């Protein structure tokens, strides 16, 4: 009896669904039968149904990835133009203040929504969820296809605003009314309306994709894939999608109400306004209401980007450190907990907005509480490295770069979240430095790591390691030297969104730093094209990767063909017997046991968690 009790602690290679049976017998491999039959898919036959209006989540994922990258490159070019003005004012003769503010706005909105969100959820979500859950495809492939094309139209509308009278909106990515819809802000006519329309289309399209991600995770997992066996990537994307479903509606109504204020003359966000000596026909609205709606979306949005990044980085670290992710359950609950808390912190963006200052107490407290689960995740990443067997390849370098930039940006977040400290720093370059470090560079490190990691799956070939290392070091060192010193501009008090500082006495010392930052920004931007070159080169001449080249445990590497075909799994769906992190299990022949390996095949190992 007491022996049985001890066996609860270390289950000798038994799956949790096992119903008795002696060690080594096939009974121990029992997994509950599927509750529904296999899914039948629509197979495209023509070029158009296979590659353009395609219903295969993998193709849709790649489409999302490519379109998001394309808009990301536009965002990158806009950032170059901004840095040109800030580092070397007057050098670009065409640059007026109007242009500058339009570039700032479009850069921000593109990078946050159309690049990062679309890339993490639309790109990685579509490609990885069905594969990692052992599904043949998303549950609603047709809706999934429409989701991408809605995104396509949203991007089209957004970019069209560059060509309308007045150009794109220059109201800052936060689009705060009243200025966003009044003269005096560039693009306050067509520009802002197209921005609102584009966001509405994006949200509609994203909802279609999001429902797919959620229901696929909840309903279409293969036999044996319990929730607590899912890779953290899926947990991250899943939770982020829940956040998106709840947060995007706030952005949608905000955009809609602002469009009405602009077009129909309603006054949701518009108080009595005196402009150029005339009282406008607005009255009674509240500009702060928009800020609440915006940040009720905007703060969860940060975690919509961060949670998939957390999930992906956990998997990359675990695979390349040849060690299970430390504290898996803690990691899952941290993702869910951060997700839930992220809905109670939005007004920390508004400490000095003029809302009731007593809110500061509440939101500072909730914001700092979120630091605890976030810190736990960081500890678990570095504890995964501890006593691992770390492959120092390009993927791992991106992971290490992520840890450094994320911890740095997370800690400056504690500065800004702590209401008193925020007062002198808000609206200065400290804020710019903070959020670029934590939700620009850190997620970018994850994206790049993920690209180098999963490219052998998507294309069947290894990306070039040497080019990859150049890409990493230029990006990491360059980006760090952009944003680390930038915090100190904030200490001086340099305000953000200034087209020019003139000769303000206390910022003349910052001229040299601005030049340095700009040059670093040009280099980091240019370094990204190394990846594009690397991809083209690899597709032409790269060496084939074969099956499961990284020796990973999770399902996406276990498809019968590489790259996986439509339907993913050939004749039979995989059956899952364990979690996704059985690396370096004592007693096992190799340093990994795939999720589909039945316990009877590795009977002598000491598996602690199944």
């Amino acid at each position, binding site marked *: 009896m007491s022996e049985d009790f001890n066996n609860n602690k270390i289950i000798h290679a038994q799956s949790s669904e096992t119903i008795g049976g002696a060690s080594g017998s096939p009974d121990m491999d029992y997994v509950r039968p599927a509750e529904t039959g296999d899914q039948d898919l629509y197979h495209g036959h023509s070029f158009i149904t296979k590659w353009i209006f395609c219903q295969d989540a993998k193709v849709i994922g790649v489409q999302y990835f490519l379109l998001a990258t394309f808009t990301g490159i536009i965002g990158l070019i806009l950032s170059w133009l901004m840095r040109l003005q800030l580092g070397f004012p007057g050098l670009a003769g065409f640059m007026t203040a109007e242009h500058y503010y339009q570039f700032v706005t479009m850069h921000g909105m593109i990078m946050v929504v159309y690049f990062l969100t679309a890339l993490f959820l639309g790109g990685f979500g579509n490609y990885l969820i069905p594969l990692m859950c052992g599904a043949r495809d998303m549950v609603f492939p047709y809706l999934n296809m429409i989701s991408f094309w809605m995104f396509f139209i949203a991007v089209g509308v957004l970019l069209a605003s560059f060509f309308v009278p007045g150009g794109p909106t*220059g109201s800052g990515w936060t689009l705060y009314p*009243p*200025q966003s819809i*009044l003269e*005096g802000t*560039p693009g306050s006519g067509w520009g802002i309306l197209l921005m609102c329309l584009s966001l509405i289309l994006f949200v509609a399209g994203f909802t279609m994709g999001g429902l797919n991600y959620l229901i696929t995770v909840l309903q279409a997992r293969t036999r044996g894939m319990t929730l607590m066996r899912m890779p953290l990537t899926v947990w991250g994307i899943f939770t982020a999608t829940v956040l998106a479903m709840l947060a995007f509606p706030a952005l949608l109504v905000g955009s809609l109400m602002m469009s009405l204020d602009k077009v129909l003359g309603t006054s949701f966000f518009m108080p*009595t*306004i*005196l*402009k150029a000596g005339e*009282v406008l026909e607005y009255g009674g609205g*509240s*500009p702060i209401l928009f800020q609440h709606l915006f940040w009720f979306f905007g703060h969860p949005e940060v975690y919509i980007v961060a949670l998939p990044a957390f999930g992906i980085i956990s998997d990359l670290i675990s695979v390349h*450190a040849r060690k299970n992710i430390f*504290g898996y*359950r803690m990691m899952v609950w941290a993702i869910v907990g951060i997700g839930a808390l992220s809905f109670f912190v939005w007004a920390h963006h508004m400490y*000095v*907005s*003029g809302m009731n200052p007593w809110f*500061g107490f509440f939101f*500072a407290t909730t914001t*700092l*509480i979120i630091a605890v689960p976030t*810190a*736990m995740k*960081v*500890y678990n990443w570095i504890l995964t*490295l501890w006593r691992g*067997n770390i*492959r*120092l390849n390009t993927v791992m370098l991106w992971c290490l770069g992520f*840890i*450094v930039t994320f*911890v*740095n940006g997370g*800690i400056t977040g*504690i500065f800004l979240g*702590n*209401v*008193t*400290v925020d*007062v*002198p*720093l*808000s*609206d200065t370059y400290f804020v710019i430095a903070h959020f670029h470090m934590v939700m620009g560079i850190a997620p970018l490190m994850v994206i790049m790591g993920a690209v180098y990691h999963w490219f052998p799956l998507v294309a069947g070939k290894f990306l070039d390691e040497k080019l990859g290392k150049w890409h990493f070091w230029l990006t990491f*060192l360059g980006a760090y030297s952009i944003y*680390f*010193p930038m915090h100190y501009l904030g*200490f*001086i*008090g340099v*305000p953000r*969104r200034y*087209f*020019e500082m003139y000769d*303000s006495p*206390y910022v003349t010392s910052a001229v040299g730093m601005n030049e340095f930052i700009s040059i670093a920004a040009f280099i980091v931007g240019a370094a990204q094209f190394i990846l594009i070159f690397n991809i083209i080169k690899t597709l032409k001449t790269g060496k084939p990767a074969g099956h499961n080249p990284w020796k990973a445990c999770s399902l996406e590497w276990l498809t019968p063909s590489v790259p996986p075909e439509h339907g993913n799994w050939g004749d039979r769906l995989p059956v899952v017997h364990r979690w996704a992190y059985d690396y*370096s299990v004592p007693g096992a022949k190799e340093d990994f046991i795939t999720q589909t390996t039945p316990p009877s095949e590795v009977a002598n190992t000491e598996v*602690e968690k199944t």
Partner: protein
Amino acid sequence: MHPGIIFFLVILGSLLFHIFTPWYWTDIASNWGSMDDTITLTFWVGGGVFIAVCLFMIYCVFKFSYKEDRKAEYKPEDKKLEKILTWATTLGVVALLAPGLVIWNQYVNVPKNAIEIDVMAWQWGWQYRLPGKDGKLGTTKVININDENPFGIILEDPNGKDDILIQSDTIHLKNNKPVKILLRSVDVLHNWYVPQFRAKMDAVPGVITYYWFEPNKVGEYEVLCAEYCGVGHYAMRGRVFVKNEEDYAKWLDEQETFSDLVAKQKKLEFNKTELAKK
């Protein structure tokens, strides 16, 4: 080069940059030194965590880099360690949050003896109004604003009659005397911000917002708009002179009150009609 060395140099560089940086606080000129202290505290705690985490990571990279014949440790969880780390982090967070909240409490509660200043913002400029002898500002309305009544003071309000109007982007403050900045805007969001005073708050059309500080260094300072307000945002500057008591009183004496302005305008009007009659 081993990547661990480069990462180590990055962390070392960050630390040295922080110690030797020529870019740091603009010298403080108000009572909010406690804000700087909270930041310094956060630097110690947060910076310590940053360095510790990164050094631990670098150590792991050196010590546990890949060897064919070694196997990683197999240890999915360590409840005790996770518990210790959770509580240690919570403690650190509380230590940072508590002083922050105490100072915020001071920030939102204005001392009774503070002088109220009405700071009015528009695209793109500032003007100021000080209470007269009664120590009270008159109430205002946006629709009342016109050439004769540049601040939109409600004429029936007796408190407004002796208000001191400063139709300029330059304001003078008395040294060592707390001021309550009452912010309003007639069009879009603005923010009256002087880096040396540390404090700031948005001016929001439709409502009056406030913050307070006590200037404690005589001198001249630049006012910046710190909330994006359209294409002229970067040029929306103002000026503050902090003066000692005598100089301040002298300056205050030279300023015009609302009744002065009304009287002047009446006289002007009267002259005009006289002229027309003739």
